[in-house]
C-alpha cells in the first residue's frame, strides 16, 4: 500500500464525510444555542419565571447538530463502521460520493443554525415584552429550520441512494 492510500481510500473519505457533517452542523448549533442562551440569560435576570419559555427558543438552533449526527450515523452504518455490516472494499469513487453527500447538511446546517439563532434571539425579545406571543417567536425561528431539514433530506437521500 502506498503511503497516500492510508489517507486517500474509500473508507477514509466516507468517514471524513461523516466527520464533516458532525463538525460543521455541530459548530453551527453550538454557536447558535450559545447566542440564544446569552440573550435568554439576560431576560431571566429580570424575570426568572421565563426560563421555560426561553429554553424552548434556545433548543431550536440545536437541531442542526442532531441532523449532522444523524447523517454521520447513516454513513457510518452504511460503510460498516457501526453495526459491522460487511460491505467489503469501498472504492475511492464511492467514498468520494459519500463525502459529497454529507456536504448539504454540513454547510447548510452550519449557516442555518446561526441564522435560526438570530431569529430565536429576536424571539427572546418577544418573550421579554409579550410572553403570551411565544408561539409566534418560535414559528419565525422554525421557518429558518426548513432549509436545514431540506439539506438533511438531500443528504439522507444521497447516502441511501448510493449503491456500494
Amino acid at each position, binding site marked *: 500500500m502506498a503511503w497516500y492510500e492510508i489517507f486517500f481510500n474509500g473508507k477514509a473519505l466516507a468517514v471524513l464525510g461523516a466527520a464533516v457533517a458532525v463538525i460543521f452542523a455541530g459548530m453551527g448549533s453550538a454557536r447558535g444555542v450559545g447566542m440564544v442562551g446569552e440573550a435568554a440569560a439576560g431576560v431571566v435576570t429580570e424575570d426568572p419565571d421565563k426560563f421555560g419559555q426561553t429554553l424552548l427558543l434556545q*433548543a431550536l438552533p440545536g437541531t442542526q447538530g442532531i441532523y449532522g449526527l*444523524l447523517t454521520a*450515523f*447513516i454513513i457510518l452504518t452504511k460503510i460498516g463502521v457501526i453495526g459491522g455490516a460487511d460491505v467489503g472494499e469501498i472504492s475511492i469513487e464511492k467514498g468520494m460520493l459519500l463525502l459529497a453527500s454529507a456536504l448539504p447538511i454540513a454547510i447548510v446546517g452550519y449557516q442555518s443554525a446561526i441564522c435560526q439563532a438570530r431569529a430565536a434571539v429576536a424571539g427572546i425579545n418577544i418573550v421579554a415584552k409579550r410572553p403570551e406571543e411565544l408561539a*409566534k417567536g*418560535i414559528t419565525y425561528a422554525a421557518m429558518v*429550520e426548513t432549509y436545514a431539514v*431540506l439539506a438533511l433530506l438531500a443528504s*439522507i*437521500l444521497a447516502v441511501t441512494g448510493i449503491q456500494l
Partner: protein
Amino acid sequence: MAIVDMNKISIIGLQKNKEEMITSLMKMGVVEVSDFIPDDQWSELVTKDETESDVATLEADLMRIKSSIEYLSKYNSQKRGLFAPKKEISTQEYNEIIQNREHIWNIVDQIAHYDEQLMQLLSEENRLNNLIATFEPWKPLTVPFDVENTKNTTVLLGVLPAIADVEKMKQNLEENVPESYVEIINADKEQNYIFLIYVNSLENEVMTLLKQYGFAKVSFNDFHGTAQENINKARQEIEKIKEKRKEILEHISVFAGEKEKLEVLYDYLLIQKDRKEAIGRLAHTNNVFVLNGWVPRELSEKVEKTILQKYDCIVEIKRPEEGEEFPVLLRNHPLVEPFELITEMYSLPKSTEVDPNAAMAPFYFMFFGLMLGDAGYGLIMTIVTAIILKKYKTEGLMNKLLKLGCLCGISTFFWGAMFGGWFGDFPSRIGITNDKIVNGIWFNPVNDPMKLLIWSFVFGAIHLFVGMGMQGYNLIRKGKIWDAVFDVGLWYVFLIGLVLFGVGKGVLNDIGKYMSIAGAVGLILTQGRSKEGIIKKLFSGVLSLYNTTAFFSDVMSYSRILALGLATGVIGTVINTMGSLFGTNVIGIIIFVIVFIGGHIFNLAINVLGSYVHSSRLQYVEFFGKFYEGGGKAFQPLKIKTKYINLKNEEDV
C-alpha cells in the same frame, strides 16, 4: 357550530344597585362588559365612572400581598405541584377570612418590615465583603493602619501598577533618597502593594521618583489595627449579620401557616379589582347607569330572566347587525378542543369567519404522530398525560395542553407501530425478530426513505387540497359561488390532472392530460376576470398558472415529515448503540439501562419540541395560508377570576 353566536346586551339599572348587579354578573360569568363609548346623543346625558385610581390602589395592594406570599411559600412545607388544583374553600370560610382582613394586613405589613430589614442587612454584608476584598492584599503588612506620622517622617501606603518594575524602583529610591524605607508588601495581577517611610524634608524627591513608576497613595486612616485585624473584625460582623438574618427569617416563618389566608385575601382583592375595572366601563347619570356587553345567544334569555328577577332594570337583548364583529368563543367537539390551542397561538378566528379547528385537528394529529413516529414514545406520552389528567383537576391552558399531549401520543403510537419504531430499534436489540415489530406493520422508513417521502407529499397534497376547499367554503358562505368554482374548483381540476398526468399510467395518464388541459384553459380564461380589457384578462390568466410552482413548493415542505421521523428513529438507535457498547454482562446491562433511560428522555423531549413546532408550522404557513385570516378578539366574560382558591356555592347559570 364552532364559533358561538353572541347577542348584544344592554342593561339600564339604578345606580344604587350597580355594585351588586356587577357582582351577580361576575358570579354568572357569561357576560362580557364592553367599554361604553357615548355617542352624540348620549354624551350630554351620562358621565363615565372614574375608577382608575381605585384600580391602581388595588393593584399596589395585590403586589404587596404577592411578595409576602412569595416569602411564605419558601417556608410552607406543603409544596404546590405544577398540576395541583386550586384550593376549594366554602363561602363561609371565605367570608370569615375577609372579615378579619385587618389581621392579615398586619401580617403583610410585618413581613414587609422584615423584608426591609433583610435588604439593609444584605447591603451591609456586601459592604463588609468589599472591605475584606480591599484589605486582603495588605495582609502581610504587620504595621497597623493607624500608625501616625512622626514629626519628621511620613508613613505611607500605596500601589504601583503590575507592569512597574518594583525592584528597580526600590533600588532607585535607596540610591537617590537613602533617608527612606520601602517595603513591597504584596503583588497580584493588577497591582503591587508597597509600604513607605520617608523623611518629610525629602518628600518632593521621593514623590517625583515614585510618580515615574505610577505610584498612587492609598489611605486607610479611618481604620485601626492591622489589615488582618480588620479582616477578622469584618468577618465577625458578617457572622453576626448571618445570625440576624436567620432570626428575621424565623420571625417570618412563624406566619407560614397564615399563607392560605393571604392567598384568600389576594383573590378577594383580585375580584374587587376586576369589578372596579368593569364599573369603569359603564356610564351613569345621577340615578341610573347603563351597561353594554355581549352574551352567548343560548344563554341570553336565562341571563335576562335572572337579572330582571333580582333588580329593577331594563334589559335589552338584540342580535348583532349583519357583518358586525363580536367577541369569539369557540366550542368544538371534545376531541377537537385541545387543538384550539394551536390555532389560538396563531390567532383566533374572526367572528365572521369559519372556525378552522375541526379541519385542522385531524391533520395536526396525524403529522405530529408521523414526525415523532415512535410507538414507545407515544405510549409514554399518552400514559403520563392520562395519569396527570386523572389525578389532578387541571384547568384552562394546562388542561388543554395535557389533552393535546395525550391525543398526539396515540397518533405517535400508531405511526410508530406502522413504521417499526419502538424506542429506536430496541426490539431487535433484545432478540425480537418478528418482522411486523422490527420493520413495522407497514414499512420501515429507515430502509426505504423514498417511500415515506412520497407518502409525505401525498399527505401534504391532501392537506393543501382541504385548505383550498376551506377557501371555497368561505367564498360560498359569502355567496360568491362562481368565485369558488373559478378559484378553487378549476385549481382542483388542473392540479389533480397534473398529478395524474405525472404519475398515472394508461387511462389515468390520459384522463390526467385532459383534466390538466381543461383546468389550465379554464384558469387562463377566468383568473384575470377582475382586470379590464381582453388582453390584460388573458395575460393575468396565463400568469396565474405560475401559482402551480407555489403549490408544488408547498408540497415539498411536507418532506419535513420524513426528515423528522427519521431523526427520532435514528437518534433512538444511536442511543441504543451507545448503551450496548459494554456488552451483556451485569455492568454492561446497568450501563445500558442508564443510557437507555437518559438518552430516550432527551430524544423524546427534543423531538416532541421539533414535532410540535413543525406540525404547527405546516398548519400556520401551508394550511392557514390558503384561507385563514384570523384576528378575532377573544370573549372575555366578567367572571370571578382567582389565582389560589376556588369558591364553592356560586350562582351558576
